[in-house]
């Protein structure tokens, strides 16, 4: 069979490797439109602080990796898909036929509707090319305004602050990482960053960016900040424009079934562009996280080669973030569920926070600040629906004992 994978991010790269495993003799083409070997956007902040070089961001370190697996890596852009004839059209003018197609085209940053966002010195921080431009302006003492304190904004924040720039972060919501942390913990992250010398403005919007020494950013509270560099990180949207006319259903992401197949047979979708199944809700939504991209890549490769033997139970939404040394994580239904119970412990002085959400005697969600040891077990207990029995009460007394709760309920303790 001939497989084509559109998109050379984590979902696409894992998919082609797995396709080779499942189909030793099939044709496999991986198409990416960026002028780099397949790389990880997650690694960009570490490139910005020069902890790694560009090669350190590459998803696979051996340049001969894809060739050795008989995978053709094509640098081009897919302009359209003719699903009736099972062909993709490339910007270069050629076309390619497929038996199975995987769309792992990822997402792109949303440009906020602010006047002046197209000025020189205003960047997204999404691609390696963006990072190359930004790194030149990250001189110590330079003034940088970061627009957006969501997950992506915050991982860049860490790199910017570490480089010694004067940093202002502006977020329209009332707290940092509002889609990962509640009012209390998101507020604590704000306090932590403010204490570290970052100027954090929440519940604030940018009215305009103007060209002046070199940039001037005006906020809706009347304040203004002079900036050498403005970075916008106001969310991303799935890359689906090239699917117009293909017959592939798109609705806030590519619509897929539990086998990650799109509305068109033999066409699959994975990763940040796919509206995959959420383990916690059973509904379909774009999660846009690394572990989900990888799981999608593995699942689609299997389904593309072997057919639809096994449905996807869904991925647990989760995130981990390091804001200037304060580490936060969130899992599943961290905001709670109707009719559920919860426990929360807050230590503002020591920047410690933990919140567990229960449904019956199972953990269905959690979020934490300053807790790094064994946090993965929260994912494990959510995903295996571990019944806690009397350990639910013990966790309500001391929610930090998650590892003990897991062991007590899954191991023979003698």
């Amino acid at each position, binding site marked *: 069979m001939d497989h084509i994978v559109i998109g050379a991010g984590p979902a696409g790269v894992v998919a082609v490797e797995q396709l080779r495993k499942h189909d030793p003799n099939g044709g496999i083409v991986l198409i990416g439109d960026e002028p780099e070997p397949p790389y990880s956007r997650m690694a960009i902040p570490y490139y910005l602080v020069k902890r790694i070089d560009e090669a350190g961001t590459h998803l696979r370190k051996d340049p001969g990796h894809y060739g050795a697996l008989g995978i053709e890596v094509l640098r081009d852009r897919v302009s359209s898909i003719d699903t009736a004839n099972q062909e993709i059209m490339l910007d270069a003018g050629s076309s390619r036929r497929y038996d199975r197609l995987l769309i792992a085209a990822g997402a792109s940053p949303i440009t906020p509707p602010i006047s002046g966002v197209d000025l020189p010195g205003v960047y997204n921080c999404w691609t390696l090319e963006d990072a190359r431009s930004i790194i030149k302006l990250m001189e110590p003492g330079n003034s940088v305004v970061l627009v957006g304190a969501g997950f992506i904004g915050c991982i860049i924040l860490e790199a910017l602050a570490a480089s010694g720039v004067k940093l202002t972060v502006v977020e329209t919501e009332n707290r940092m990482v509002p889609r990962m942390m509640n009012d209390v913990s998101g507020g604590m992250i704000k306090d932590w960053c403010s204490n570290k010398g970052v100027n954090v403005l929440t519940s604030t919007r940018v009215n305009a960016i103007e060209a002046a020494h070199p940039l001037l950013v005006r906020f809706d509270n009347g304040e203004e900040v002079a900036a050498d560099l403005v970075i916008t990180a106001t969310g991303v949207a799935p890359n689906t424009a090239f699917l117009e006319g293909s017959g592939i259903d798109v609705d806030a992401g590519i619509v897929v079934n539990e086998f990650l197949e799109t509305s068109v047979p033999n066409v699959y979708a994975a990763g940040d562009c796919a509206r995959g199944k959420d383990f916690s809700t059973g509904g379909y939504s774009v999660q846009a996280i690394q572990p989900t991209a990888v*799981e999608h890549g593995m699942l689609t490769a299997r389904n593309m080669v072997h057919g639809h033997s096994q449905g996807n139970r869904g991925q647990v939404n989760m995130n*981990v973030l390091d804001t200037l040394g304060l580490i936060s994580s969130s899992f599943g239904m961290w905001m709670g569920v109707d009719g559920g119970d919860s426990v929360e412990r807050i230590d503002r002085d020591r920047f410690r926070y933990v919140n567990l959400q229960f449904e019956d005697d199972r953990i269905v969600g959690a979020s934490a600040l300053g807790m790094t040891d064994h946090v*993965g077990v929260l994912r494990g207990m959510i995903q295996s629906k571990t019944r806690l029995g009397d350990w639910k009460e013990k966790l309500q007394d001391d929610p930090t004992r998650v590892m003990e709760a897991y062991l007590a309920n*899954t191991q023979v303790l003698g």
Partner: protein
Amino acid sequence: MLRALSLEPERCTGCLQCEMACSFENDGVFNPAKSRIKVFAFHEEGRFAPYTCTQCDEAWCMKACPVDAIVINAETGSKDVLDSVCVGCKVCTIACPFGTINYNSSTGKVIKCDLCGGDPHCAKACPTGAITYVDADSTGMERMRAWAQNRPEAGPNYITPVEKDIQTYQRP
């Protein structure tokens, strides 16, 4: 033949010599906070449970890593973190459903059990035989049974976390 750590909580007295040996072997310090193996205490029942990475076949940590910093050790089967490649993003720490790969703030990288390259110091340090390094095949069935009994509704689905069969909890 591959070997695996066999953990028998009923033999554990909570002396923490395994944690001391692990941190000293790997970081040159006697510091349980740096240990890759941890002893969990159940004081209300007077019990202890040593626990560490089972080197599971799914290798959730390895698959989740965005920079290919976790690799399989061909000799021991362990999943090893390459310090020179790890960027410290911590995605593996939330992806591992057993909570056995952790962030080490003093190095800015993650740490996990690598079986000390085939000579695990925790097993050598354990004075009661609660941690032993044994042939992988000799231990499988009891462990699988114990796991299955505790997961009544778990059906066959490859995304459900399953510990590696070969790490067993044997009754003496």
